[in-house]
């Protein structure tokens, strides 16, 4: 039959077989294999004889991290393992270099950097190709960032075919939360040769997961299932070979090309598969237009709001955050937009005096630890775009390319290499065309050129450009016309920055809202707007109802059920409450509202000194006397933080610098990653008006010393939570003393005590956040 494709058989478990031959728990199978080459070869041989066309060499964990203590080099183990496999191969058997996860999670889930992971894989890939492997298999992956590092390392350092499989749980997610759709999409975009699943579950449970993957890729699929689920106490698998093969028959409606076994399977399982002579289908389907992160896949068949606030242009808060290198503040801006309804965030960090490339990478990395919406990389510099795309975890949008030949030549190869989507601006060497048909022609040209670079149509999002209506009144209509033509004739997703329309006119929001509705009607998918403006999101929600996208107006009702017309901006004030009481009760919104009112008559400094600090002191005293406890103290600090936000924004609007009563450095020492305690201290200290330089967690000694000296910080706070990291704390204190930088040192954390502080010559022991504020008062007077 024409629409059927033959399935290639893979081998079954190696670990299970080695355990039967004497591998002990905790022992590295690769080292055991090195010493027992005959055992490994005999296992491979059994698989070849049972019908496996591709066998996986015993190299799963042969990376430099795992082999560190073994005394063996990566090359030595891999070379020997490939040879052992080749000995068992017949003329048609292909030997795969088998590569599993490194064993440490990558940023943002863990602490291994992308570059280090890339380098670890590169070493394995090069050793494998040199040793004569026929293909590279990455399997049992759970972290999409690691998958990306692995694929890039293989593509950029070898010419071998690449197979990738991840391990999913019953909820269709890997341990790190990666969904099947995002994995399939990324593998497809990075042009691997086959993609699929292995380990974790039996065939029955894997079926719906593979079905989900099949909807997002046209690549050949791989299934290497376990022999059911293991008995937790004995770690043995109950499924029989014929049950396994029968169960896999249910996969034949999918484009499956490779089937084998994972944990608990043996040569008997492969022999049974061989007898079944299974086939897969040959369907080529249209893959939906998507952007994604590991945990979230956003399709472009709906209106999707792109938040525009991570951009310093005309945004003083963002500008200040960039100048202060305050990544948490940028993350806060991101979270506010998501809360308001943004589904993608535009990220632009271009500011004079800032190293855009480095900042872009840091911001993206930080955002990806905290938010799960996809990002749009907004820059004109190809070097910045490439650096960002490389470490981006998922499939991003690049904003932007335009119709100029040089722009397309620089940007499009990057889009192809990293599998991204791109925004195409409808302008070219001649600038912005006035009439719609010319803009449409440029859109068409961008699309055709992109396809020449093998970028599929659904990956190009056309921006028809918004011009300021006060300067060029006729242009608004032309933008809408272009949108309509692009949508009708090219049938690609569209994106548009909306807010420009109203520049220079009063009631900007009114014009923005009206233009947004018109643009959505004309075919706009992705408006780039400020989602914190309620009017804009209201327009989006209304459009979704009127356009039939929001079925039964469910989302609309959920959002607006509690509101009545004319009551949208009702404040959160409770009658008769003072700011002092609001802080003590931890009421954030009330505190914010009261502070706004105070700002009408008082100076910011007066508010801090006469209202906020006394309120916090009062709470602190109640805490000391056990009339309040830590949750209440922290809630009070959080409330007071809301007031501080208001004050800071007011100062920014007036172009003034923020209030600071002194500089304090905070860090959780090297090796320690528990930092909630330090972060509580930070919130409290900031609310007393101190400028806190938070270096985060796992901070090396030299970074702490360097920052203290460079920024001339007189008070250093160090935190450690584990006995294993106390040594790093002591080392940091010694280094601070040795550099003769005049400063006081306070230490804290679960395992720290006054006795310990005395012993390691710290100046203060801060038993809690309140104590750290008292110490700061003593140091700064």
């Amino acid at each position, binding site marked *: 039959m024409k629409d059927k494709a033959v399935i290639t058989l893979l081998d079954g478990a190696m670990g299970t077989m080695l355990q039967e031959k004497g591998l002990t728990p905790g022992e590295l199978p690769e080292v055991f294999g090195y010493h027992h080459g005959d055992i490994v070869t005999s296992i491979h041989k059994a698989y070849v004889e049972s019908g496996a066309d591709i066998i996986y060499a015993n190299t799963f964990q042969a990376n430099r991290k795992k082999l560190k203590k073994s005394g063996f080099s990566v090359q030595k183990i891999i070379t020997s393992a490939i040879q052992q496999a080749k000995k068992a191969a017949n003329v048609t058997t292909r030997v795969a270099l088998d590569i599993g996860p490194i064993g440490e999670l990558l940023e943002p889930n863990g602490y291994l950097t992308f570059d280090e992971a890339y380098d670890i894989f590169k070493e394995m890939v090069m050793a494998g190709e040199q040793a004569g492997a026929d293909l590279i298999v990455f399997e049992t992956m759970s972290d999409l960032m690691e998958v990306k590092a692995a694929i890039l390392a293989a593509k950029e350092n070898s010419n071998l075919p690449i197979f990738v499989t991840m391990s999913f749980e019953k909820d269709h997610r890997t341990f790190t939360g990666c969904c099947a759709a995002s994995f399939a999409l990324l593998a497809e975009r990075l042009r691997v040769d086959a993609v699929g699943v292995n380990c974790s579950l039996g065939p029955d449970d894997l079926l719906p997961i593979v079905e989900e993957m099949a909807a997002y890729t046209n690549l050949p699929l791989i299934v290497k299932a376990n022999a059911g689920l293991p008995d937790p106490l004995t770690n043995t698998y109950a499924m029989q070979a014929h049950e396994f093969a029968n169960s896999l028959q249910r996969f034949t409606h999918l484009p499956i090309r490779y089937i084998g076994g994972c944990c608990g399977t043996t040569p008997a399982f492969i022999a049974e598969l061989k007898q079944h002579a299974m086939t897969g289908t040959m369907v080529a389907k249209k893959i939906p237009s998507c952007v994604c992160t590991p945990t979230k896949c956003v399709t472009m068949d709906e209106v999707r709001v792109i938040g525009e606030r991570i951009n310093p242009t005309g945004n003083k808060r963002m500008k200040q955050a960039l100048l202060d290198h305050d990544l948490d503040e940028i993350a806060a801006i991101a979270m506010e937009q998501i809360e308001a309804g943004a589904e993608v965030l535009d990220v632009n960090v271009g500011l004079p005096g800032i190293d855009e490339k480095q900042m872009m990478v840091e911001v993206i990395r930080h955002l990806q630890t905290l938010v799960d919406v996809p990002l749009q990389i907004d820059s004109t510099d190809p070097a910045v775009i490439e650096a960002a795309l490389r470490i981006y975890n998922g499939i991003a949008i690049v904003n932007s390319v335009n119709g100029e030949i040089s722009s397309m030549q620089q940007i499009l190869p990057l889009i192809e290499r990293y599998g991204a989507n791109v925004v195409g601006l409808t302008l070219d060497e001649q600038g912005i065309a006035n009439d719609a048909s010319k803009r449409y022609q440029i859109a068409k040209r961008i699309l055709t050129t992109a396809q020449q670079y093998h970028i599929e149509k659904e990956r190009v999002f056309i921006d028809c450009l918004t011009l300021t209506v006060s300067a060029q009144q006729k242009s608004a209509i032309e933008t809408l016309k272009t949108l309509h033509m692009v949508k009708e004739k090219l049938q690609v997703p569209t994106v548009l920055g909306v807010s420009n329309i109203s520049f220079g006119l009063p009631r900007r929001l009114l014009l923005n809202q009206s233009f947004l509705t018109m643009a959505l009607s004309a075919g706009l998918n992705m408006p780039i707007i400020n989602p914190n403006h309620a009017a804009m999101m209201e327009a989006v929600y209304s459009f979704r109802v009127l356009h039939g996208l929001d079925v039964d107006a469910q989302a609309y009702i959920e959002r607006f059920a509690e509101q009545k017309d004319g009551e949208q901006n009702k404040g959160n004030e409770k009658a008769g409450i003072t700011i002092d009481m609001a802080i003590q009760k931890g009421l954030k919104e009330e505190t914010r509202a009261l502070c706004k009112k105070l700002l009408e008559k008082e100076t910011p400094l007066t508010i801090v000194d006469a209202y906020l600090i006394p309120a916090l002191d009062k709470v602190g005293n109640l805490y000391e006397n056990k009339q309040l406890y*830590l949750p209440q103290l922290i809630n009070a600090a959080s409330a007071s933080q809301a007031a501080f936000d208001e004050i800071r924004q007011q100062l920014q609007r007036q172009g003034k610098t923020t209030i600071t009563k002194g500089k304090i450095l905070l860090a959780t020492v090297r090796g320690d990653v528990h930092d909630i305690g330090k972060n509580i201290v930070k919130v409290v200290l900031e609310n007393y008006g101190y400028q806190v330089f938070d270096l985060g967690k796992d901070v090396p000694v030299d970074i702490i010393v360097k920052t203290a000296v460079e920024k001339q910080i007189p008070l250093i706070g160090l935190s450690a939570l584990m006995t294993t990291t106390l040594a790093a704390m002591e080392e940091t204190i010694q280094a601070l003393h040795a550099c003769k930088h005049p400063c006081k040192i306070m230490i804290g954390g679960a395992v720290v*005590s006054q006795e310990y502080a005395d012993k390691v010559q710290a100046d203060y022991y801060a038993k809690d956040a309140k104590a750290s504020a008292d110490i700061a008062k003593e140091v700064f007077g």
Partner: protein
Amino acid sequence: MLWKTPKVKEEDILHYLGSQMMDELLHKQMEEMMTLLNQDVRCQVIYRTLPLENHQCRYIKLQGKSIQALLKESHAVIIMAATLGIKTDRRLRALEISDMGKAYVYNACANAMIEAVCDDVNEQLRRQYAKRQAFLTDRFSCGYGDLPVSTQKTFLQVVDAERKIGLHVSESCMLVPEKSVTAIIGIAKTVQPAIVRGCRVCALKEHCEYRKGGTVCER
């Protein structure tokens, strides 16, 4: 294996909050954060039994007096590892930026939950072994008493925790995801006394500020 998310007792959360007082806001936060936590957690558990020979395990070096005391009547041990998954870590980091008060409560809820998961596993194992006339010791974790924290790495290796439940350990013995526990439980032929948890066996009991402040870890 995926483990059913257990119910968490309010008093346990208060214990981790270090609070002896409940006000309206805190109550609201606890409810809200428990809901969020229940959405975020994916409890994963793995355990396996290993035999002991002369109170030592072939695959794990069990150092220190406290673990020897615990296992003095045991002929085998269960090594267990449990985690709430990576999403709780991410949520906590995000909350620490947006609202520290909520973050603190979420953290306490997560701590209480991972303990509840371990208690659940313990109870299930206790029942299973009771049927075979075998008795379990208390659950003992690395860093309790004088059992070195570094033993954690071997615990994870013998249960293949990276692969089976996605639990990793950093070079300085930190577990990733953070809300995770590894532990050892002895199996004996006689009823085992419950003695090993709480302040009495804690290496930090002399200097612990919580203890000085009157908060004790004994249940």
